[in-house]
C-alpha cells in the first residue's frame, strides 16, 4: 500500500512501536506496585462550605455513614479458616454498588474457606436479572432491589429458603470536590443550568432516587422543584458507579448515589449533601442461591461468609449500613 521509502518509514514505525511498548511497560509496572484499594473508612469531608439557614434541611455534610471504630475492627480481624468438604468456584452475580468492596470480600472469603473461590459479575441488578432470566449461569445472586428479588423468586430462579436480607444503603447526593455548580443545599439542585447525573429508572438506585425526590417534594419542597430537578438531569446511567464516575470527572454538578459509594471513596473526592432520613429511601440488599447452581456447597459457604460477622464488617467498612 504505502510506497516504501526505506529508512524513513521503517524508522518511524520502529519508533512508534518502541513508544507503545514503553507505555505498556510503565502501566504494567504501575499496576503491579500499586497497593490494595482503600479499606479504612475515610475521615470527614473538609469543612462545610455553606451556612444556609432555614428552609433547607441540611448544609453540606461531614460524614454520612457510621464510622467503624478500631475496637469493633479488632473483634473481627482476620477470619479463621474453616475447612469444608466443598472446594468449589462460586459465580456471584452482584449489584454494581458492591464493586469497591468486592476484592476485599473475595480475599476474606477465600481465607475463611480455603479451597473455595469466588468470581463476581458486577453490573446493575436489572442487567443481571435479565441475564439470569435468559439462561446465564450464576450460583449466588446479590440484588440491590427487593422487587427484583421477589420477581426472581416468583419466577422460580431462587432457592427461596436461601434468600436473606444482606445489608442496606441510603441515597445521598454527591458533588465534585471543586463544586463547579456551587450547590450548597438540596434546593440548589433545581437551579437552572445545573447538570445532574442519575441512574436510569430500571436500576434499583434509580427507583430509589425517584422515590426520594418525590418524598422531598411532598415534605419540604414542591412539585415545581421536583420537575426542575428532572429537567436538570443530563444523563440516566445504567449502573450506580457510572454516576459516581461522571461526578468524579467533574462533568456533572451533582449525582445521586448510595451512601456507601461516598463513604468508601478516598478523602476529598466528593462533597456530599445528606438527605433527611424521613425523606430517604432505605435500599435493602438480598442474597440468595440460585436453583441452577451446581456448586451448592461452595455457594452455601459464600452465603454463610457474607452473612457472618466478617462479611458484614467488610460491608460496613465500605459504608453499607448493617440491618
Amino acid at each position, binding site marked *: *500500500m*504505502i510506497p516504501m*521509502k526505506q529508512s*524513513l*518509514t521503517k524508522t*518511524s*514505525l520502529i519508533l*512508534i512501536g518502541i513508544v507503545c511498548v514503553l507505555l505498556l511497560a510503565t502501566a504494567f509496572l504501575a499496576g503491579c506496585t500499586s497497593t490494595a484499594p482503600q479499606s479504612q473508612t475515610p475521615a470527614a469531608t473538609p469543612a462545610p462550605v455553606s451556612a444556609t439557614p432555614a428552609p433547607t434541611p441540611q448544609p453540606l455534610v461531614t460524614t454520612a455513614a457510621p464510622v467503624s471504630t478500631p475496637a469493633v475492627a479488632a473483634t473481627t480481624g482476620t477470619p479463621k479458616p474453616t475447612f469444608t468438604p466443598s472446594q468449589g468456584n462460586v459465580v456471584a452475580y452482584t449489584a454494581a454498588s458492591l464493586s469497591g468492596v468486592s476484592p476485599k470480600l473475595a480475599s476474606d472469603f477465600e481465607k475463611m474457606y480455603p479451597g473455595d473461590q469466588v468470581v463476581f459479575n458486577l453490573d*446493575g441488578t*436489572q*442487567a443481571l*436479572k*435479565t441475564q439470569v432470566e435468559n439462561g446465564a449461569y450464576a450460583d449466588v445472586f446479590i440484588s440491590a432491589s427487593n422487587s427484583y428479588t421477589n420477581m426472581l423468586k416468583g419466577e422460580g430462579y431462587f432457592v427461596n429458603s436461601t434468600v436473606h436480607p444482606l445489608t442496606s444503603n441510603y441515597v445521598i447526593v454527591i458533588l*465534585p470536590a471543586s463544586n*463547579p455548580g456551587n450547590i450548597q443545599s438540596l434546593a440548589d439542585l433545581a437551579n437552572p443550568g445545573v*447538570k445532574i*447525573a442519575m441512574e*436510569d*429508572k*430500571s436500576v434499583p438506585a434509580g427507583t430509589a432516587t425517584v422515590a426520594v425526590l418525590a418524598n422531598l417534594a411532598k415534605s419540604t419542597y414542591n412539585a415545581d422543584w421536583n420537575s426542575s430537578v428532572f429537567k436538570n*438531569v*443530563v*444523563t*440516566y*446511567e*445504567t449502573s450506580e458507579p457510572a454516576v459516581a464516575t*461522571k461526578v468524579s*470527572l*467533574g*462533568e456533572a454538578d451533582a449525582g445521586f448515589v448510595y451512601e456507601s459509594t461516598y463513604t468508601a471513596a478516598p478523602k476529598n473526592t466528593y462533597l456530599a449533601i445528606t438527605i433527611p432520613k424521613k425523606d430517604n429511601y432505605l435500599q435493602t440488599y438480598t442474597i440468595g442461591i440460585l436453583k441452577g447452581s451446581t456448586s451448592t456447597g461452595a455457594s452455601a459457604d459464600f452465603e454463610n461468609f457474607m452473612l457472618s460477622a466478617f462479611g458484614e464488617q467488610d460491608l460496613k467498612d465500605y459504608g453499607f449500613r448493617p440491618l
Partner: protein
Amino acid sequence: MKPAGSIPEQYRRTVTYIAAGFLILSVTLYLALPIAALFLRITPDLFFSSLSDPQVTSALWLSLFTSVISLGVVILVGTPFAYVHTRCSYPGKVLVDTLIDLPLVLPPAVAGVALLVLYGRAGLVGRYFSMAGISIAFTTLAVIMAQIFVASPFYLRQAKSLFEQFDLAYEQTARTLGASPLRTFLAITLPLTAGGLVSGAVMTFGRALGEFGATIMFAGNLPGVTQTMPLAVYVGMESNLASGLTISILLVIISFGIMIAVRLLSSKEVQHA
C-alpha cells in the same frame, strides 16, 4: 477425514459440492439465524404498538439524524483529506496513516473516555469551551463527535485505497488538456471512484448508527437528546423487553434497506479496503 486421493474419481465432484454447500450453509445460518430469532420472539401487534412508544420514536429519529450528519461530515472532510494524503508526501505521513486506523482497534468505551477527558467540562480543551459557554459533553453534538471518531476509519481507508489505486494517467491527461487540479478531481477522479466511496460511506453509516460505548461514555443517556437506538436497546432490554426487541428489529430493517439500496445503485464490482 479421508485424504483426497483416496476418494474414488466418480464421487469427487459430489463430495466437493456437499462440502462447499455445507460451508456456505453454516456461514449463512450463523449470520441469519440470530436475525430471524429477533423477528420470531416478538408478535406483530406488540411490534406495531411499540412503534408508537415515544422512547422508540425519539431514539429512531435521533439515531438517523446524528448518523446522517456524521456521515456528511466524514465525506465532506474525509474525501479531500484522503486525496491530499495520497497525492502528497509530507513529514509524519506514516504517523497519520497509523492514526487513521487507530479508532478501528481502539475499544469504543476507551474512545468515549478519551473524548470525555478532552472535551468534557473539566477536560483539557473542553474547559475553554465551557468558559465560552459552550458545553459539549452530554449533548447531541457529543453523539455526533463520538460517531465521527469511531466510524471515520471505514471511509478514510476506503478512500485512501481507491485514490492510491487510481490510474494517474487519467489525471495527467486531464491536466495536459488544461484542467486545474480541482477540476480534475471533481470531473475525473471522483466519478470514477464513486462506487467504492459509496461502499465506504455505507460502512461508515452502519458503524455510526450502531455506536454504543463511546456514546454512553461521552454523551450520556438522555431520551430525546443523546439516547440513540443502541442505547435504547440496552436500557430497554432490561426494563421493557418489547421496546428493546422493536428497536433491534428496526435497526436490522434499516441496515438491510441501506445494503439493498447500495447494491441497486452501484453497478460496478467494488474493491474493499
